[in-house]
């Protein structure tokens, strides 16, 4: 379905509103294909079409919500009735309210590429097979490819409200991923590689295969080092994961509800002077770029930390209103939930040194190439973190032996202040934050 058809449905729902009621309808539709190959054969080929609607009702300062995974006309009415009934049981809150048009023009982004529609099933299968072969051929120590996938999606959505919001969007996306197994002696290690784009010609089989091969083979022979305090270099993929967590602490919702370690710190120096952090979903380079947020307001560039100083928290309409400011266009949601607040395309402003130069300046350190259990090991309220890690030792400015079964631990507050350098290698990734090499001093590395 195209966005105009979805908007028509959303407007129909909004039209059922009664006096004294605010209604918001979010309608989404997507078509997806996923091909998985294994040992030269198609293991599975899935074709999927899904749609859904989420309806929020606000009446007498109370909010209710309901969603359904279909757009059948009788279900739309049922869902609205359910959302309306749910308002009765919520607590009144004078700050509840839908977004209202705020005059900010949405950015012109080109997120929809027709070339995806013309890419046939056989071509998708061939691309997945080519990826599997490329990983296999990448290194004699590659003993298996657990999966090689091609996937794509065509998504459209529309938002309408009784407060005058009318927003539509659609985008195309496609990806390649491979999970590889490398073996030497008794030891096995795993790796992964990926490539993402808006249409298939931008996918790079060679890059996805090379990463999958390198990630699996570079850890062969890794050992557990002793515990010590070291300087760490986070590789771009690892930095992006940390940024996502730091971003969550800068949400206006966490601040208002007493769950942010940065509450009351606006204007303070919370990071080293080389740290400038921006959330900018209007940047066309970001895979998560979008012209409108989850409430249908135009997205915008938000400076969060400038030269180490805390500049701003992110808001949706509710948290903006309640904190006496306004939405920063940062409502995030699917149709099955009410809007939260979050980063959409977060990145550090890069420095001027490439990773080789950063490493050359370190006597004793670790290049962290992978972390695991980051989410379970971080408490975004207290800031304590501890994560499993693996990577390469850095000795006298050069990369040395691989290490595994280590953890790195600090607090988010400490880590931001201990950033010694930001690399020049900014890389956009298929997640809501971008990667860049990051040097952090004085981190506890636990091992044997």
């Amino acid at each position: 379905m195209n966005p105009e058809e979805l908007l028509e449905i959303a407007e129909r729902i909004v039209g059922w509103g009664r006096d004294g009621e605010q209604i918001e309808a979010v309608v989404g539709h997507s078509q997806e294909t996923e091909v998985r190959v294994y040992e030269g054969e198609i293991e599975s080929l899935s074709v999927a079409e899904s749609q859904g609607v989420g309806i929020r009702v606000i009446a007498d300062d109370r909010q209710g919500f309901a969603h359904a995974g279909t757009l059948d006309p009788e279900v739309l009415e049922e869902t609205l009735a359910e959302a309306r009934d749910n308002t009765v049981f919520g607590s009144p809150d004078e700050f509840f309210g839908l977004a209202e048009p705020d005059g900010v023009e949405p950015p012109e982004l080109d997120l929809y590429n027709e070339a995806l529609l013309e890419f046939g099933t056989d071509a998708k299968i061939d691309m997945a097979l080519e990826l599997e072969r490329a990983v296999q051929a990448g290194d004699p120590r590659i003993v298996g490819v657990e999966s090689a996938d091609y996937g794509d999606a065509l998504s459209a959505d529309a938002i309408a409200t009784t407060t005058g919001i009318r927003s539509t969007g659609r985008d195309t996306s496609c990806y390649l991923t491979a999970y590889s197994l490398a073996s030497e002696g008794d030891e096995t290690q795993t790796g992964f590689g990926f490539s993402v784009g808006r249409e298939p010609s931008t996918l790079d089989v060679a890059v996805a295969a090379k990463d999958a091969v390198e990630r699996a083979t570079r850890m062969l022979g890794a050992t557990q080092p002793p515990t010590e305090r070291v300087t760490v270099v986070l590789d771009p993929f690892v930095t992006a994961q940390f940024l996502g967590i730091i971003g969550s602490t800068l949400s206006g919702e966490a601040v208002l509800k007493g769950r942010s370690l940065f509450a009351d710190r606006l204007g303070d120096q919370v990071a080293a002077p080389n740290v400038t952090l921006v959330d900018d979903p209007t940047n066309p380079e970001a895979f998560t770029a979008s012209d409108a947020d989850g409430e249908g307001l135009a997205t915008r560039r938000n400076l969060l930390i400038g030269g180490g100083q805390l500049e701003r928290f992110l808001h949706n309409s509710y948290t903006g209103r309640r904190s006496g400011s306004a939405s920063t266009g940062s409502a995030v949601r699917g149709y099955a939930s009410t809007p939260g607040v979050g980063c959409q395309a977060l990145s550090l402003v890069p420095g001027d040194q490439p990773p080789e130069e950063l490493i050359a300046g370190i006597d004793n350190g670790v290049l962290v190439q992978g972390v695991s259990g980051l989410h379970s090991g971080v408490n975004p309220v207290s800031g304590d973190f501890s994560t499993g890690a693996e990577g390469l030792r850095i000795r006298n400015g050069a990369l040395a032996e691989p290490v595994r079964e280590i953890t790195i631990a600090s607090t988010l507050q400490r880590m931001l202040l201990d950033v010694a350098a930001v690399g020049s290698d900014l890389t956009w990734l298929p997640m809501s934050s971008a990667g860049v090499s990051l040097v952090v001093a004085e981190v506890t590395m636990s091992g044997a």
Partner: protein
Amino acid sequence: MIDESLVSSTLSEALRTGGEFAEVFAEDRRSSSALLDDGKVEELSSGRTRGAGIRVVVGETTGFAHTSDLTEAGLAKAARAAAAAARGGGGGHQVVALDRVDAPSPNEIEVLPETVAKATKVDLLGRADEAARAAGSAITQVSARYADGRRRILVANSDGLLAGDDQVRTRFAVSCVAMGDTGMQTGFESVGRPIGFELFDEYEVDELARTAANRALTKLAAQPAPSGSMPVVIGPGGGGVLFHEACGHGLEADLVAKQASVFRNRVGEQVAHPEVTLIDDGTMAREWGAYAIDDEGRPAQRNVLIENGVLTDYMWDLLRARKEGRESSGNGRRQSYQHLPMVRMTNTYLANGTADPQDIIAATDRGVYVAHLGGGQVNTATGDFVFGMSEAYLIENGQIGAPIREGNLIGNGPEVLSGIEVLGNDFAMGSPGTCGKDGQGVPVGDGTPTLRVASMTIGGTAA
């Protein structure tokens, strides 16, 4: 949900262009949840999804399509799409006449949540908020969530299988923030069972709220976690997730077949202390991962994976089992009709030992006592795992001492299994969990008695 004659014609349509096996999985799911945060009931939310997933197998290839249109035309369209995706040639396979066989459910439902007034559900939240705040003036924030869901499924396949299940789940969780001189700390507690609103006859929400609050308050006095390798004692029920991740995933037949498990080719070997018995049991009444049938229509089973330290078997779904010429072990599960099933755990636990838990602690000179593990993950190919410790204490001179701040615990599955030195006689199940694999989440349970592992690495900040 859908008529049985419609199921039959859909299967025939799916096999018309040459599939060897076809399956229809229909699902109707209703959910409701209510969230209290910051002293206010933010909203009630209701959800409804309904649809069918159809798969067609030809040789090594599975074609899959799903639809939310459960009419004859909608199902036929999805069947043709799945058949086209499977790329069969020829034809000739027939659908065996469907024979409905329902398995008994391990869970009896007394009070269907949909029959309970919304006001009654909301009332639980206010009580939890009040009890948590009363636990100490340092409690500065409370959130509580009530959630229930009812999932009705119907599965039919071209081998003649036809079965259904009506799965109800009810859950309650409380999370608190405490503020002290050293900053903020959090505490969490949750309960859930595959039963209805009678869950609250068994659990008092006030008590759950106090537990969550006390966890946060305790951590205000916590010291930085130590770093390095040391003995770890895991409390009853608090660490089952470790064995789920570190051992269970490696025993899933799909990962084993793809060489992605450290436990491949090891059936019959001694992989753990002779007192270690690891079981996955989908029939465990009223436990979070229990059901009557799996999402391929196979009745749930009790599967012994490791018996007296010897690896006895893996867990199987339908396709993996067919390839090996054996029966599924009832572990074929999927998140929803929009997903393909794969091998998944149910309730995975280490069976009781014989030691007195007090003796286990007393015999530990220096180490860490983990009362509660948080989330974690494992690399099944290497066995390496990582877990957050959400409630842990130092053990000094055989006694549980000061609480420690959050940190990770890392180790290796096979090494931990062989490093288990002693098991207590105080088995308990842990909190309800959601297991993620290949992007799909399903409800699972876990459990352990008190046990000690000779050495694991604690990732703290203290030297």
